[in-house]
């Protein structure tokens, strides 16, 4: 019995649709709240080649929305964990694993190998990078993003249609729009948005129905409202020929930073001053022995740190809040030196595994 008979029996989809899925190569960027539900359906439905990219590890606070992962997976790599489970779900799928984050240096090389991209990232720099790389390579991409109880879905750069920059021309600064870490998201919302993205991928690949090209779907979970906003192509946004110098928001570029690996080395040689800006609850769960907890919300430097004049290393879970903290601290204390620990506690815990 054909495992896909329930969908091939649909007259609009049929064997032809199934064959198109089998031949499709789809890259899913990010193995989190959006990427996992999308992957589970794309894999179950028989998409032939699925690319997975992420370098994060499974954390306890992921489990509330990233429902492919179990308690036993906490502390393990998302890439390997997701790959193992998806492989047992469908052994016929060809998986391509990219053990990295998408960066300016690897984006074109990686995306080039695929027919389309599903953007399941959680930050603006990655979204603008995916947009520009897809425009340069002429690949459509299915966008999904969240805020609290709301979600966005659209299909960008599809057959000359509008792109992400036609909707939001320039990247907002870290100050104006909060990210998921401090803003929160109701667990089921990414499941809904990720599944809507999977549906759009299927439609782009097989050509059935009307795609959300030139339409932004705004979903409001609290009121079950779906708003569809039409928007047009700005031709200059299709004329991108190369990636930008940097995809970090402009006010972050002046921040000193150190890789988690370098910091570990430094720390072994000599004890450093470490400021942990996560919430007291996160701090209680795990922290570096020498770290002092000053949550981002109540950012006030202890007097002895101000007087010591020694460089202060700032850490959080993933390296985003620490970046925001340094922006504020540097304004308040221009005479002191602050340094962001890239990848935060997540990256340090990978190193110590």
């Amino acid at each position, binding site marked *: 019995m054909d495992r896909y008979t329930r969908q091939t029996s649909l007259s609009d989809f049929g064997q032809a649709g199934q064959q198109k899925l089998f031949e499709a190569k789809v890259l899913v960027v*990010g193995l989190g709240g959006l990427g996992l539900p999308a992957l589970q359906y794309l894999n179950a439905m028989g998409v032939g080649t699925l690319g997975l990219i992420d370098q994060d590890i499974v954390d306890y606070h992921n489990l509330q929305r990233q429902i492919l992962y179990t308690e036993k997976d906490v502390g393990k790599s998302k890439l390997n964990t997701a790959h193992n489970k998806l492989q047992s779900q469908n052994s016929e799928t060809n998986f391509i694993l990219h053990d990295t984050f998408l960066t300016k240096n690897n984006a074109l090389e990686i995306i080039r190998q695929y027919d389309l991209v599903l953007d399941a990232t959680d930050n603006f720099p990655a979204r603008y990078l995916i947009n520009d790389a897809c425009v340069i390579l002429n690949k459509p991409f299915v966008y999904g993003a969240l805020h609290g109880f709301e979600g966005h879905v659209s299909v960008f750069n599809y057959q000359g249609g509008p792109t992400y920059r036609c909707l939001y021309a320039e990247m907002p600064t870290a100050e*104006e729009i909060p990210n998921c870490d401090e*803003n929160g998201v109701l667990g089921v919302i990414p499941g809904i948005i990720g599944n809507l993205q999977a549906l759009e991928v299927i439609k782009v690949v097989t050509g059935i129905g009307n795609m959300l090209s030139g339409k932004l779907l705004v979903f409001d979970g609290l009121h079950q409202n779906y708003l569809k906003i039409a928007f047009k192509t700005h031709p200059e946004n299709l004329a991108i020929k190369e990636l930008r110098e940097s995809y970090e928001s402009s006010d972050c570029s002046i921040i000193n930073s150190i890789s988690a690996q370098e910091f570990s080395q430094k720390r072994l040689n000599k004890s450093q001053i470490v400021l942990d800006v996560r919430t007291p609850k996160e701090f209680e769960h795990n922290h570096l022995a020498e770290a002092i907890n000053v949550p981002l919300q109540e950012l006030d430097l202890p007097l002895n740190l101000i007087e010591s004049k020694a460089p202060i290393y700032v850490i959080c879970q993933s390296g985003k809040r620490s970046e925001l903290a340094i922006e504020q601290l540097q304004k308040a204390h221009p005479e002191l030196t602050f340094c962001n620990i890239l990848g935060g506690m997540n990256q340090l815990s990978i190193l110590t595994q």
Partner: protein
Amino acid sequence: MTILLFGVTKDIVGSPTLSVPTTSVTGKKIPKTVKELKRFLGEAYPELNKLSSLAVAVNNAYADDEQKINSYDEIALIPPVSGG
């Protein structure tokens, strides 16, 4: 006119909708274009001025600053969102 608020604009205003008076009882100039509406809202909620790219939809279509608006229009503020 009633404005639907999404994303961080809902958080800034503290409500999913916002009413803008269409008669000049308040003595303030009534917004007649998207640009004037943005200015009007920015005066009431200065935090909104910080949003560098904010999409405004009029009758379910993306509107530029020059577009005219009236009390029958359905207007929504849709800022970019980044979570995943």
